[in-house]
């Protein structure tokens, strides 16, 4: 995973997709696609090679957790780095996401520094 990686941002709020997109651009990522919910994200994942997923949790149609489970269950997608960005803060939810195979977790609201640090950790993990 490097700055040429294709990043998929999944969030039902266009504002947050734009905020995350702006932060990613500041970090040097230019190859960015967006989806409004888990179902649309799966369509993007099936139609093109995605290197890194940044997903909200609470979304209509398919939640971020359901998307994560589908990604991990699909052999061709299962190794895709997955960062959850969400307002969900219940410990049970965090534990459930970790069990489902999330690589990292950010609680909204977050600063550019926090996102940068989490992405650096994931870059190191996946090389």
């Amino acid at each position, binding site marked *: 995973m490097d700055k040429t990686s294709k990043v998929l941002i999944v969030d*039902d*709020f*266009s*504002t*947050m997709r*734009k*905020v995350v997109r*702006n932060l990613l651009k500041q970090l040097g990522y230019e190859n960015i696609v967006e989806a409004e919910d888990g179902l649309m994200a799966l369509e993007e994942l099936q139609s093109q090679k995605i290197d890194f997923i940044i997903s909200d949790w*609470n979304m*209509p149609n398919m939640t971020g957790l359901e998307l994560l489970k589908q990604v991990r269950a699909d052999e061709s997608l299962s190794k895709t780095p997955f960062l959850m960005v*969400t*307002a*969900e*803060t*219940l*410990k049970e939810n965090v534990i459930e996401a970790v069990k489902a195979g999330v690589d990292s977790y950010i*609680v*909204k*609201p*977050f*600063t550019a520094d926090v996102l940068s640090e989490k992405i650096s950790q994931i870059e190191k993990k996946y090389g």
Partner: protein
Amino acid sequence: MEVQYINPFLEGTLHVVKTMAFIDARPGKPYIKKDNVAKGDITGIIGIVGSIRGSFALSFSEGSILRIVSNMLGEEIAELNGDIEDAVGELTNMVSGAARQRLEAIGISLTAALPTVVRGKDHSIVHVLGGPSIVIPFETDSGTFVADVCMRKDGG
């Protein structure tokens, strides 16, 4: 409504506006609101359930929300449009999350629904429990906004 339910929403609002829009909002004195009329031009409202239940609303004057969203997106937005409605929903969602995180620290576990957004002069805020609610006013250099909290224990 107990004071311990209010402070997390006050702190959560300050935290979200500061972190996302780099604005230090100035809180005023909370007061009780008995009618349904919104204090702002655009409002996000979200239902919350768990060991207490009710709803929470964020209601912004046009000036305050235009500045907040312009700062969030790094571009100037001059009118209340779809981008602003979307941002108000997400700000409501984030403040709800920040407040729930603080309430969980004192043993109150809650989950939230998806927010809805209403706009227009003198529009209504209809709380899940009907009301009354506690309103926390905030000032910014670009205008005012309020956090409007109506949370109770069942039977409380």
